[in-house]
């Protein structure tokens, strides 16, 4: 019978996003490998962000440094090669050799393969090793078959890449040898469409069957029977960093006032068209260490005014802007345009903070990374970041909030946080790690070091005849064997 073809439009699949191809060993291209069903990792996340088996059946933490992983039987690569322990070993070894970030995360000392089991030894205790292996770079590929010039790899997923032009398109066909069920769609084209409006038109015209990454303002076009939405909260958070070296934001009252002066609810419901979640902490409620466990300020302009008043910030010259010691309460708000939510956040924060007497001056530039290294140039830095790419709370803090963090450009320091960080470093028990994660979030919230505004609601829109395309909280899994067109 007729071939089933499927076209997927994506605004983010491009070299700029470090997804020039589908080779998991090339920076972030693993995201494309796993999203488009070419590669699979040893374990995956469930909808509750719990570890689940995938290529691997189970793991055993033999000791602090040794992990034994047992693979499922009958897993084969799309080229027919059996994916056994040896193949996994080859894949991981080549990963560690080629991918610096992976090498740093995994700290692998040695790998041994024996039939369907793989034993990994790490150089230091790595409580989150299995989580790291779920990162898209962990896609198991046939290292023997190698990588083509344009970055195509052989994986175990339901689809096989046949053609790839960076920033333009990726062609996939059904993996006839798929080990884990029946694949419904015969051919898939993933089109990179960098302009959200073009994508919206293409979806309207029926040129793409499903789309990811449109402007929120286009969503109402599809809120009808012809289209279906699939949405889920993710750990991508939009949040503001405070600069502790700035004379203004080093004042705790100012930070508290900012936290109270941002209207997260309205931001999400109006500006994001409801496609987002107001954030409490760094992680969404789907995580066991999510925001439901935290206490933080809600939108309270009157309260914010009072806090400022008490700290001596008063508007004495009647221009609507408060001042203290002759200095105006000016907030230099640094952000960047490549995430459409950030300018929206900046503009709305600007208005709500104005009401409590702050003059927010927005600098929205793609050059933000250079600027934020110089703490004299900004007061608040609003950015978007995947806070728990591995489903674990530690990553966020080690990368941003500690003395040793590379990105701690606001020079935030908390003795308490340092102590908790030291604990989580050594903690292997998942529940205890969660607990520590909650304490750490509460610590930074109490210091008002960050204001977490919202979490991304990852949404895909499809023609109503598409089934099996479901948004996943970790953002990794998009095109699966379940995908079908009726």
């Amino acid at each position, binding site marked *: 019978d007729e071939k089933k073809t499927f076209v997927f439009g994506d605004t983010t699949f491009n070299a700029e996003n470090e997804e020039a191809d589908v080779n998991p060993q090339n920076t972030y291209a693993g995201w494309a490998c796993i999203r488009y069903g070419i590669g699979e990792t040893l374990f995956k996340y469930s909808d509750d962000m719990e570890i689940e088996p995938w290529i691997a059946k189970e793991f055993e933490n033999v000791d602090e440094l040794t992990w034994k992983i047992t693979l499922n039987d009958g897993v084969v690569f799309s080229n027919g090669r059996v994916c056994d322990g040896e193949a996994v070993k080859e894949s991981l070894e080549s990963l560690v050799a080629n991918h610096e970030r992976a090498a740093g995360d995994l700290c692998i000392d040695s790998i041994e393969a024996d039939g369907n089991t793989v034993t990994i030894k790490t150089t230091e205790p790595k409580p989150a090793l299995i989580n790291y292996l779920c990162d898209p770079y962990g896609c198991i590929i046939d290292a023997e078959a190698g990588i083509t010039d344009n970055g195509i790899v052989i994986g175990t997923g339901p689809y096989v890449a046949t053609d790839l032009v960076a920033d333009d398109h990726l062609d996939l066909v059904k993996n006839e040898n798929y080990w884990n069920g029946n694949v419904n769609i015969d051919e898939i084209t993933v089109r990179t469409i960098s302009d*959200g*409006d073009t994508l*919206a038109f293409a979806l309207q015209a029926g040129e793409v069957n499903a789309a990811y990454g*449109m*402007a*929120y*303002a*286009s969503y*109402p*076009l599809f809120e009808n029977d012809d289209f279906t939405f699939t949405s889920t909260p993710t750990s991508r958070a939009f949040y503001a960093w405070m600069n502790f070296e700035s004379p203004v934001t080093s004042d705790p009252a100012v930070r508290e006032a900012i936290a109270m002066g941002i*209207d997260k609810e*309205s*931001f999400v419901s*109006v*500006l994001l068209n409801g496609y987002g979640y107001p954030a409490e902490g760094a992680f969404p409620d789907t995580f066991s260490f999510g925001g439901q466990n935290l206490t933080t300020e809600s939108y309270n302009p009157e309260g914010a005014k009072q806090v400022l008043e008490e700290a001596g910030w008063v508007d004495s010259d009647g221009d609507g802007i408060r001042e203290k010691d002759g200095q105006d309460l000016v907030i230099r708000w640094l952000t960047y*345009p490549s995430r459409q939510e950030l*300018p*929206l956040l*900046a*503009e*709305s924060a*600007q*208005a*709500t903070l*104005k009401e409590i007497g702050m003059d927010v001056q*927005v*600098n*929205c*530039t*793609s*050059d933000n990374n250079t600027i934020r290294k110089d703490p004299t140039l900004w007061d608040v830095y609003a950015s978007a970041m995947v806070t728990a790419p591995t489903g674990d709370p530690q990553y966020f803090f080690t990368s941003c909030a500690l003395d040793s963090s590379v990105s701690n450009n606001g020079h935030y320091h908390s003795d308490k946080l340092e102590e908790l960080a030291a604990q989580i470093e050594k903690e292997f028990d998942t529940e205890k790690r969660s607990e520590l994660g909650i304490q750490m979030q509460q610590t930074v919230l109490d210091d008002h070091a960050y204001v977490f505004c919202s979490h991304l609601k990852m949404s895909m829109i499809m023609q109503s005849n598409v089934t099996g395309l479901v948004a996943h909280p970790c953002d990794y899994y998009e095109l699966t064997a379940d995908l079908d067109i009726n």
Partner: protein
Amino acid sequence: MENEKNKVTVRVQKIKKNYIKQKLIFFLILAAALIFAAVFSDKLCPYDPYAQDLSSAMQAPSVLHPCGTDTYGRDMLSRVISGARASIFSTFILVAVISVFGTAVGVFCGYYGGILDSLMMRVSDICLAFPGLVFAMAIAAVLGGGIQNAVIALAAISWPKYSRIARGQTLALKNAPYIHAAILAGDTSGQIIWRHVLPNMLGPVLVTAMLDIGTMMMELAGLSFLGLGAQIPMAEWGSMMSTGRSMLQTYPWVVLSPGIAIFISVVIFNLLGDTVRDYLDPKNNRSARR
């Protein structure tokens, strides 16, 4: 024959009156009105163009909000009026700077010639051959985004047009008998340029400048699209259109209001330019003034 002479045929000539002066005044008034609106935009706005009210976001045009409201619940009419300042002023300043600078360079090169002339013409070649977009983006990257920097970027690549016009005109005027007469009257070169060359080439430059106002508005809008235009939350027509473009189908007034504003001002300045050209055209003048 004799009889026929008595019956003289009389034909009535339909006189097409040349309303150039009236037209010129009319468009000058319209342009003045636009500039007035730009200068006094604060006073003319029915609402604060920056006051957000998320609860009344995306309202369709109504009596309260004749142009509707935007995503932030800001009154579009007020934003369009207040956008006149940024849009019209920035294009005005831009066009003024490039036309004055470009003309100065062109006159200088054309009048004195020599090495300096060849050198400046090479420089303008380079500016013309340099992809404008790269230039604009590089400037934006060096100086940061924002309307001023977009204006700087556009200025840097647009001046050669004027210097070419001015140079050509100067070369043509340089040998006019009245320039020779001025030399005999003992004018210095500076006096000749100031008294005779500049006034006589003003026409083409002025007309190009008028037409450029529309072009530059478009260019600024294009830069806004690339994220190099006005900064948040400044109301500027180009960036309003660019940020509102996703709402074309859902909330069309958000993108159409600034669009219409651009259209109206482009039309006014274009027509003004055309009329100025007609007015300066000696063919029209002779009959009009005699």
